[in-house]
């Protein structure tokens, strides 16, 4: 045993081992790419899942064993390890969605190869330090995502125009980011964000213009309000696994690029307070209010969740404004952004899994699809209720941790533990942020209650069934040959297992989080949930 531990101790662990595992499996998969045999498809699913799990393990083990790694092109620290872990976990879930809804397709193995390729590229993006490496990995990642999404939707004529617009917007954002880098280069031949921070020219107008352009590029890339048109149409019209790919592969990549500029943003926010705080508050307010109002007024389940996703992104943007005012510290901003993303994953993967299955059978994503789910299928109904309650921040659940820290800063301010800069402008901004947080939380609660009530409503009556048939004929005329099935709310056993895992994680993390908040001291866990 000591020989093994000595041997492990001599191995130099590099953060690229996880990427190497994924690309090795891609290389093997290339030999089977053209196969349509069912046995090979199943083998490829297990091989891909195994590679992602091994990559995830190697990522965490590398960080724990070797610590921080920095070079000219790459850097690997705590935040990068978290980002890679989140994305690999997300890709594992996306593998499940793609396998369920695309297994019968002739190019299924090619889809898996593209998915693994995006996983490797997003790891490169998270690790990249140099501007060239960052931009190239981000650009190629966007191109491969386009390949994946267009291949998934190759039999849906309705979405072609919207997919082209979606990725043309992504290409525009890439070009704007490129222009931003050109201005930063013009300052002092700087090659990465750390050099910019340490440079004497950090206050230069060229750096400010560069950061501004890169932020605008990412703003377009994420389809944040008021540019959400293409995003909503793509989510609405696409096949079943595309929305989760957009939500948990495409959009997080934009956030990871944004996180690379965090230190610079904090510097400029501190220097240009309150103007930048106002800009962040305005963007957050439009996202939170627009997302929630849009969700409450629609009867399409996909649009509801697409809007709510944007609302949570608005909360992440709001955390930068709160930093500007001095309400929260820098590491809390990163923590809130990451945990908002994890909250979305914890909620959307199980809930959308159920919704997509119902949608596949009923041929429509009408809100009425959920009617009576909790009555007919009590186990899933209760699980979904817990997950949705967590989403709106109920105490004892995962979602409570993120909501808590938005309100906790105001409570500490009222107690006098936090001091913000004096002045009427700052006071107005403080109340504005508080109002946005309260209104946003209430709206999300209203949206979630609306969904939960629908789950517990009595079973579908004949008029609702006829309405769903009519909606199916209007929304997807080319699928009229498929019969709309009545909801019987029976699911494969896998869905029960899948949803249960998420419910258990949500409750356990919620309980541990509350114990940490009250300083109850959980000694057997070597890390904290509530801080970085």
């Amino acid at each position: 045993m000591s020989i093994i531990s000595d041997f492990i101790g001599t191995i130099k662990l590099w953060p690229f081992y996880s990427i190497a595992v994924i690309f090795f499996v891609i290389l093997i998969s290339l030999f089977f790419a053209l196969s349509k045999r069912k046995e090979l498809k199943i083998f490829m699913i297990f091989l891909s899942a195994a590679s992602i799990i091994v990559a995830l393990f190697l990522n965490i083990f590398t960080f724990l064993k070797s610590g921080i790694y920095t070079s000219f092109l790459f850097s690997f620290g705590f935040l990068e390890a978290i980002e890679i872990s989140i994305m690999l976990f997300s890709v594992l879930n996306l593998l499940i969605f793609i396998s369920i809804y695309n297994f019968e397709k002739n190019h299924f193995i090619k889809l898996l190869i593209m998915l693994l390729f995006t996983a490797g590229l997003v790891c490169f993006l998270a690790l990249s330090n140099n501007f060239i490496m960052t931009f190239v990995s981000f650009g190629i990642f966007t191109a491969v995502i386009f390949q994946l999404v267009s291949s998934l939707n190759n039999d849906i004529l309705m979405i072609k125009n919207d997919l082209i617009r979606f990725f043309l917007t992504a290409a525009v954002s890439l070009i704007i980011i490129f222009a931003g880098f050109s201005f930063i280069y013009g300052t002092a031949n700087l090659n990465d964000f750390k050099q910019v921070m340490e440079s004497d020219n950090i206050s230069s107008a060229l750096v400010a213009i560069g950061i501004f352009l890169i932020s605008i590029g990412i703003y377009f890339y994420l389809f944040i309000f008021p540019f959400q048109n293409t995003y909503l149409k793509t989510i609405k019209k696409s096949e079943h696994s595309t929305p989760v790919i957009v939500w948990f592969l495409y959009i997080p990549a934009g956030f990871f690029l944004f996180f690379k500029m965090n230190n610079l943003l904090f510097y400029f926010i501190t220097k240009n307070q309150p103007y930048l705080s106002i800009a962040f508050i305005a963007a957050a307010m439009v996202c939170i209010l627009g997302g929630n109002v849009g969700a409450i007024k629609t009867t399409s389940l996909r649009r509801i969740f697409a809007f709510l996703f944007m609302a949570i992104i608005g909360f992440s943007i709001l955390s930068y404004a709160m930093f500007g005012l001095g309400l929260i510290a820098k590491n809390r901003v990163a923590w809130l952004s990451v945990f908002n993303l994890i909250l979305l994953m914890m909620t959307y993967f199980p809930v959308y899994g159920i919704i997509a299955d119902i949608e596949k059978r009923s041929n429509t994503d009408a809100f009425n699809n959920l009617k009576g789910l909790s009555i007919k299928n009590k186990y899933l109904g209760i699980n979904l209720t817990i997950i949705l309650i967590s989403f709106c921040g109920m105490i004892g659940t995962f979602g409570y941790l993120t909501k808590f820290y938005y309100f906790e800063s105001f409570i500490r301010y009222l107690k006098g533990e936090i001091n913000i800069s004096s002045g009427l402008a700052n006071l107005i901004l403080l109340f504005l942020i508080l109002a946005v947080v309260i209104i946003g939380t209430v709206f999300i609660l209203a949206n979630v209650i609306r969904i939960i009530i629908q789950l517990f409503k009595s079973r579908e009556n004949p008029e609702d069934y006829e309405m769903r048939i009519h909606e199916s004929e209007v929304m997807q005329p080319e699928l009229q040959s498929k019969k709309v099935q009545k909801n019987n709310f029976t699911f494969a056993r896998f869905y029960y297992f899948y949803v249960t895992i998420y419910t258990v994680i949500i409750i356990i993390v919620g309980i541990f989080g509350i114990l940490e908040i009250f300083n109850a001291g959980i000694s057997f866990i070597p890390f904290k949930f509530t801080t970085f």
Partner: protein
Amino acid sequence: MNLQIINYFSFFLFVLGLFGISYYKNFLSTVISMQIMFVAGIINFFSFAEFLYQEPVWDKIFVIFSAIVIYLLLFSIVFYKYSKQNQVYGNINNIEFADYKLFKIEKTDWWGDDKIVNNQ
């Protein structure tokens, strides 16, 4: 020719491209506007390298790799639009005159349900 004039010119090109992608519905007009914006960025890189730094190489490497990446994505999109190999080729007239305006604001993006019509 000094650096300031060159930067004004690249700024003009950038704004022209931005106007193009915001205004035009036609696919080719949008792609051409994107090229103009990209050229503005390249002019920035080369002008800063020429006037400010001695024997710069980094900017050339950045531009080459960025061009490869951006044109890889654009080529994929153009190929997807015009290719007959996938099943969504559809009616060429319908697709040629389809609306590819990138930044639209519709009432349904903020309120109510979306009425889905083919290629809209």
